[in-house]
Each structure stands twice: as C-alpha cells, then as structure tokens.
C-alpha cells in the first residue's frame, strides 16, 4: 500500500520536473536572422536582475528582454527611461521558444538610443 503510494508520488514528481523542461528555453533561442522592430507604449516595466524587462503594445503585445540593471544604468537607460507609459522603439531578436518575447539589441526612448549589448 505505502509502497504503491510513494511510487505514485515519485512518478508525479518526476513528471512535474520533466514535463515542463521540454518547453523551457534559455538564451540560446533567439532568431538573429529575423530581427524585429517593435514600437509603442510601455505597458509594464520591471527594472530587475538578471535582466530588465518591459512589455510593449506594438503590432501585438511584446515582452522585451533588456540588459542587467547595472548595465542599464551605465548606459543611461535608468528605471525612469523605461517607465510605464513611455513610448519605446525596440530593435531585437524574437525568441524561437516563446511567442511574443524578444531580446533587445537597442532601444530608443524620447529620441535617445541605448545599446543593450
């Protein structure tokens, strides 16, 4: 009884770990051959490590992955620059793993361009 139960729990644990693993992605999966430019208002803004991210209402809603916050500050792209409501143009590479996500090479806000790499 107990043996079957614990086997079942172990199986569930294995599937819980392995199932989503196939869907997960990392920094290897961006399509540099087909860059995109996304322009529009910033809907949400997270000035966080390991990478700042914003969501932008362009042709559709994009999640734009930016740089680590230390580099963001160094390049002048502070939390205020990418605040919610600002209009941004982001040039970068769409994720091949997650729809609607892109990694920005550079962004332009208020006529100023900030390099992310």
């Amino acid at each position, binding site marked *: 009884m107990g043996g079957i139960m614990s086997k079942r729990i172990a199986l569930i*644990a294995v599937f*819980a*770990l392995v*199932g*989503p*693993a*196939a*869907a*997960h*992605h*990392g*920094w*290897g999966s961006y399509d540099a051959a087909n860059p995109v430019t996304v322009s529009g208002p910033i809907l949400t803004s997270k*000035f*966080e*490590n*390991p990478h700042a991210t914003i969501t932008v209402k362009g042709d559709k809603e994009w999640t734009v992955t930016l740089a*680590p*916050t*230390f580099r963001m*500050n160094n390049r002048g792209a502070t939390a205020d620059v990418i605040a919610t409501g600002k209009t941004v143009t982001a040039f970068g590479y769409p994720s091949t793993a*997650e729809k609607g996500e892109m990694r920005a090479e550079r962004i332009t806000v208020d006529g100023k361009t900030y390099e992310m790499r």
Partner: protein
Amino acid sequence: MEHAAPAIFVALEQSGLASGIRQSLWLYPAANVGHIVFLFCFAGAIAVMDLRMVGAFAATSPGHVLRGARRAALVAFSGLAVTGFVLFAAEASHVAVNPVFQFKLGLIVIGLINIALFELYTAPMVKDLPPLAPLPKAARRSGILSLAIWLAVAACGRSIAYF
C-alpha cells in the same frame, strides 16, 4: 508553460527574498561573480586532493595534503552553495525546470556521495601512509571520478543559460 514549475519554486521566486535579490542593483551580479570565484577555489582544492589520490605529488604526505585541501574545499563549497542559492532564487521557477540545471544538481549529488564514500572508507586507509607509499586502487578511482564529476558540474553550470 512558463509557470509550469512545481509550486514550491514558484513560491520561492515570488518570495520577498527573491524579489529583493532581483531589485538590488548589486546583489545578483555579486552572487554571479562570487559563484565563479568560489568555483575557482573549490576546483583548485578538489584538484589538489584528486591528483594526490591519482598519484601526483607522490613525495607529499597524503594525510597532510587531504587535511589542508579539505578545509579549503569546504569553505569554497559553502560559498558556492550560498551564491548559487541567490542566483537560483531570483529565477527559481525557470531554472528549476531547466534540463541542464537538473542534470547539474544530479551530478552534484553524485559528487557529494563520492566524497562521503571517500571520507568514510578511503581517506582512513590513506591518511597515515608515508610519502611515496603506493595508494590503494579505491583512492585512484575516487580521484578520477571526482575530477570528472566536478569538471562536468562546472560545464553544466555555464550551459544552463543556453537551454
């Protein structure tokens, strides 16, 4: 799909601690730098022990080599665990389901079991041997296994970002 990680890792990522790590300007980069520096120290200490067990530096007393390097390895491993936890917590729900991370954790467990077996059975056999004394086969086996495991762990750690 993104949030299909087990609830405990989602909870960790959403905790105040993890959020504090993400919002700090320097904490995450410091943990990142610290992790690689501790890895360097750990690898050095482990390599000294493993190479001695494989037969290098034969003119040294194995007991003395093990005692000194073991202390350094323990300190470095503690540093690796702390900085590794900081890096993990910030993105727990993503990293937990990363196949390379899971593989790395498995290797670490095997590496720690290898150390435990070595300390229990092999270290007592070699610690009082004089310099230049031949070492038991178990010591050589353990040293080679240890080197292979920890180098693979380091390779996996760097590879997490690409999967």
